[in-house]
């Protein structure tokens, strides 16, 4: 009891010092940018395509298909293509989105009965991520406080607390920047392409983060429980990238979700695109590539009766 009595003034001083320090770092600027972003590089600014996407998304609307995943999802899956072909589609992908983030977005924003199909991009980089970057981005930009708290706490990292503090200190602040590549429906497509084929570091060992593997399994279980069909998908990769690593990854993925798991559509090397003309960097599709991939994916979903033919 005496220990508790001494802990209270200490905790009060700590919280006071923390809040004053945070407030000061949010208000003092260097070159027009609050110092907090220089002091804690893991904290990301409010704004960009994630902000625009979640401002536009209406969880109460009905969608034929919702895409989730990292930048592979919002750069490579073009919801506008699906819309043009008669499907209500929205892309909820976000920068470096990990399985943990996808799980909470699905849990809180994708209501049963409102979404007919979820396509989750399972790029291996997102499965190897510690989720700090993606959580930081989402905590600043998603409208739901509850989802922001869930993600920040699921990080199991003190940086999650800083992300939440920043969210509240920046609550009334306008977004710091906008993404010019953002398009209605959540996609963000780039029109530039690689001029020189990149070199790939082949033979890098796979390091799947156990937490992300755990959340992928939870996502599969959640969709099953809510009766929402789930498709795991991999978009086109440049042919020159590490094909052996990808094969090992998909084997691991199949083991992870089990024989009764969701459909896995792996288009990584099942294409005739040019590594130079259809990608804007080492592994992201540009608008031309995204158009071709989206057409291929739609045909595949129709063939498998996951989306009705329209």
């Amino acid at each position, binding site marked *: 009891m*005496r*220990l508790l009595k*001494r802990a209270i*003034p*200490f*905790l*009060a*001083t*700590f919280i*006071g*010092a*923390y809040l004053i*320090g*945070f407030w000061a*770092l949010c208000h003092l600027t*260097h070159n027009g940018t609050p*110092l907090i972003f*220089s*002091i*804690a*590089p*893991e904290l990301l600014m409010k704004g960009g395509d994630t902000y625009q996407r979640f401002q536009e998304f209406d969880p109460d609307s009905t969608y034929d298909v919702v895409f989730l995943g990292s930048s592979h999802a919002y750069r490579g899956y073009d919801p506008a293509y699906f819309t043009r072909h008669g499907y209500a589609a929205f892309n909820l992908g976000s920068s470096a989105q990990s399985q943990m983030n996808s799980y909470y977005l699905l849990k809180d924003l994708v209501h049963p009965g409102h979404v007919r199909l979820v396509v989750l991009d399972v790029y291996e980089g997102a499965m190897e991520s*510690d989720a*700090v970057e993606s959580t930081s981005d989402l905590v600043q930009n998603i409208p739901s406080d509850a989802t922001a708290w869930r993600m920040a706490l699921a990080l*199991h*990292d*003190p*940086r999650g*607390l*800083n992300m939440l503090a920043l969210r509240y200190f920046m609550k009334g602040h306008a977004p710091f920047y906008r993404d010019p590549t953002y398009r209605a429906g959540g996609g963000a497509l780039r029109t530039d392409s690689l001029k020189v084929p990149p070199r790939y570091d082949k033979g890098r060992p796979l390091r799947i983060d156990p937490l992300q593997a755990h959340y992928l399994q939870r996502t599969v279980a959640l969709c099953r429980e809510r009766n929402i069909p789930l498709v795991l998908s991999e978009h086109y990769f440049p042919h020159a990238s590490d094909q052996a690593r990808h094969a090992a990854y998909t084997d691991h993925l199949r083991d992870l979700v089990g024989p009764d798991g969701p459909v896995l559509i792996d288009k990584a090397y099942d294409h005739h695109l040019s590594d130079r003309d259809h990608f804007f960097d080492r592994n992201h599709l540009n608008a031309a590539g995204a158009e071709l991939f989206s057409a291929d994916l739609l045909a595949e979903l129709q063939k498998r009766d996951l989306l009705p033919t329209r």
Partner: protein
Amino acid sequence: MLFNSFEFAVFFPVVAALYFLLDPRWRWVLLLIASYWFYMAWRAEYAVLLVVSTIVDYTASRGIAGSEDPRTRKRWLLFSILTNLGILGFFKYFNFLNGTLRSVVGAAGGHWPVQDTDVLLPMGISFYTFQTMSYTIDVYRRVLQPTRHLGRFALYVTFFPQLVAGPIERAPNLLPQFFRDHDFDQARVIRGLKQMLWGFFKKLVIADRLGLIVDPIYDAPRQHDGPTLVLATFLFALQIYCDFSAYSDIAIGAARVLGHDLMENFRTPYLSSSIREFWSRWHISLSTWFRDYLYIPLGGNRVLKWRWYFNLFVVFLVSGLWHGANWTFVLWGALHGAFLVAALIFAPLWERFNAVTGLARRPGWRQAVNVPATFVLVLLSWVLFRARTIDAAGWILHEMMDLRTGLEGLRHTLFDHAPVMALTSLLFAMGFLVFDPLIDDLVKGRRAAPRPVQYVFYGAVMAACLLFGHFGNTAFIYFQF
């Protein structure tokens, strides 16, 4: 498990709470399970080495105590030493030795057929093998009666706060504490928590932030000029001190919360006025280990002068090798040995210099000369410690002497990419350097402060950890040893 991880933030309060809730008779069981859990969170299979070390030294010490025959006693001692050094040698030095032999044979035009192994260096192996060996040697020297209690002895080998990076404890200090009851003592718990908090501050806010500046420079030293390398070396001196002493503070604080006292491992070493004093303030548990179990058995200073110098030099050479299986560490140790021997040889000359210049009559002035001079020598030696190869170290030392390039490179390295980050790291480092002696006394209970001041100080320290800490489970530098 790292101290600066989420797992430890859950693990430690749970263990501490269970420890005080449990019947005192069974607390050692909890600590033993917790210690194995702590170690196995890194690599479960390497716990086998802890078991082997425990059984070997328990058996050897019982064998020694059970016999009056000097030959039998010596055989048991050799069994312990050879097993411990054998494990250490295989896991830590096999590839180093093999690589050296391959180079030598290759240089002579031959072919060395033995391949390197790809085993991982077991975490903390240099620390716990030295701790267990000291137990058996103490029993052999009749300084200590061996314990019959295998469980409590196993806890002495594996006690989690100091298992991975020390302090390297001695059985006469630590082992009896596992036989005592430790009631919950609020003052003690608070003191332990304060020391832990200060350790976290040093690790997260100073050491790891300085690492962000130092590491890129030392990873590509040829891309930097003299002044930048001087600054990087200076910051590395602070980084390694904060990193290692942070581990010791967290270890000592955690043990104190659980009612146990570990030995002090650092005493503001950069305030030393000689290399000899530096080693009585830096990694004290290792220095005293080498003094008691290598230097004195070699004859210490009770021998001819040349032999005394030789003994000193050998001890530091071995100490260098203990730090890492790389010629840079061996040279680092040799350099410190050379400094000490040189200090002994030139002591009369130095005394005469002090007398002539009047420094002998002004201890304050002498201190003002000796402390920076010692620091510069330590700084130069850190180049060997931090550089990846001897070639790189040579190049860095050469460039550090050439300061004609001006400060443009330094300005570019520090302030062109992340100026705010660099500036805050430097401010924290300089603040630490100035206030370390004062805070060290406060944290270790040698100096008192009014309670409100303490609330403000520790509250601000904790807030600074959260606001300015560099998180991301960065391992402590001494884990690699």
